[in-house]
């Protein structure tokens, strides 16, 4: 018979090992992608797959070879930062107004905003495509910025709203008594207090825009296509580019993966529309 302490210790070891096993299994595809990106194309296609091989940086050095990687990366950067910037410009005042000047309509407005997220993109694909064609927005970064801003806006408003709601009203009243104008109240008190929450909202918006793959595949061609579309172009069956695909994928995912790791706790709020904190 084991003592209570021993059973507890054994249990921790068992749970720990099991958790590690599951985590390694789930993480394996990402690890394998990283590994493959250091292989030559021949090694990448060897059967059975090699765990040990002579690593090469060639795929990274010649990342531009098959396609203009930096062009697509730049498109991704512009589109996700642009839509995040405009999104914040719209979301912060809206959330501020809803959090601090609540009216009878506020609740319904918030829920309505949420409901726009339910509109399936395919439902409006045709008109958006035709409108974009008429306005010359097809295959432009501006077009994608507009779309991404709109699809992420409800989440951003929600997220900022829940952060603002957590700031005690007392602090804003104290500022008002201290003589702060509404502008000063926002810039010198509210925003500095909420900056952690705003940062994670920005991160979430960047992540969502960076990874968006419905509109980018449907509305862009070579001109404004972001990395999601570049990666998709590797699906064509001509030739074997798995090592290059892995290198491009690794570079495309690395920054977002790091953002995600950094802000995992705060993201929960945005991803669950504030229902889980």
């Amino acid at each position, binding site marked *: 018979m084991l003592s209570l302490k021993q059973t507890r210790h054994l249990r921790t070891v068992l749970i720990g090992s099991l958790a590690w096993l599951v985590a390694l299994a789930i993480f394996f595809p990402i690890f394998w992608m990283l590994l493959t990106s250091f292989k030559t194309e021949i090694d990448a296609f060897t059967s059975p797959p090699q765990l040990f091989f002579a690593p090469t940086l060639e795929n990274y050095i010649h990342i531009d070879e098959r396609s203009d990687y930096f062009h697509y990366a730049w498109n991704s950067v512009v589109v996700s930062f642009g839509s995040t910037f405009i999104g914040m410009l719209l979301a912060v005042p809206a959330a501020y107004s809803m959090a601090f000047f609540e009216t009878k309509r506020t609740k319904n407005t918030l829920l309505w905003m949420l409901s726009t997220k339910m509109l*399936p993109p395919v439902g409006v694909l045709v008109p958006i495509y035709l409108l974009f064609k008429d306005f010359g927005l097809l295959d432009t970064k501006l077009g994608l910025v507009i779309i991404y801003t709109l699809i992420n806006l409800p989440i951003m408003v929600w997220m900022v709203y829940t952060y603002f709601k957590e700031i005690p009203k007392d602090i804003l009243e104290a500022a008002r008594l201290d003589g702060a104008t509404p502008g000063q109240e926002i810039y010198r008190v509210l925003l500095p207090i909420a900056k952690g929450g705003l940062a994670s909202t920005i991160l979430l918006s960047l992540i969502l825009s960076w990874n968006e793959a419905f509109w980018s595949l449907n509305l862009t061609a070579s001109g404004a296509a972001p990395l999601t579309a570049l990666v998709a172009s590797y699906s064509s069956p001509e030739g074997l580019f798995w090592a290059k695909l892995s290198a491009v994928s690794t570079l495309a995912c690395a920054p977002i993966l790091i953002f995600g790791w950094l802000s995992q706790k705060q993201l929960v709020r945005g991803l669950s529309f504030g229902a889980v904190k």
Partner: protein
Amino acid sequence: MSITSLQAGVNTASDMATGSAGPKLQKRRRSRVGLAMVSPSVLALLVWMAVPLAMTIYFSLIRYNLLYPGDNEFVGLENFYYFLTDEGFVAGAFNTLWLVLSVLAISVVAGVLIAVLVDTPFFGRGIVRVMLISPFFIMPTVSALVWKNLLLHPVSGVLAAVWRFFGATPIDWFTDYPLQAIILIVSWQWIPFAVLILMTAMQSLDQEQKDAARLDGAGPIAIFWHITLPHLARPIAVVIMIETIFLLSIFAEIFTTTGGGPGYETTNLAFLIYSQALLQFDVGMASAGGLIAVVIANIAAFMLVRMIGKNLTDKA
């Protein structure tokens, strides 16, 4: 449009700065500023919702094919009739349903188990958590292609090697089990979402409640059923609803792996409408399909607002 009205809001705010308005005046001005601050977002979303939707409704009622320009005559519900009786629709509806339900079941069950598993402290828990949630941040086109080419490939894929190691014949996933392969990929992407949400929700589980249950003689399984699961009920509802929204519109994974085939085997409604619109250029029929997708999504949306919407605002 929205930027100018935002500036209007800022101007009003700076007007207020100069005056020494009392609470009465201030309140009125503040409510006006409040309105000015919300309206850009509301207007933007309103336009985003209303205009394309109205166009979709209009297109769905006319004959409109980009390949055959000419009279866009009114055809009533003909497009709906053709869309609904198209062999693609039955397959698409079935595949959509199957995809959504399978991924939901897999990700929720796995998510709950993993969240419970990593709730107790052990060596390296932080790293384990990071690894567990990582797939969620991988862009859909990347995960689809990495799975297709590096893992599921019948010759050089990792799974093929595992099969061979055990003496079995490797499976050609995308030929023999295309829909299951896609379910596998999508589940891999969404399990981390469930884990992330439920892991966080686990932290708010009252330790004293568990201690009390243990003093009452509850074993780990009883605690899981009677305390942990009820506590996770609401977050699970959140996971289900949000995943449903996204899973109904799965597109990139199909686009980059199977292109909807073979046949209609991996075509879901989203992909079907896409192919109608941008491959066959039948705007009318695609619009009819789009509206049907909207109706389906709205049923889910209605459930979401009913089930969690109340909680969301009450808490906030």
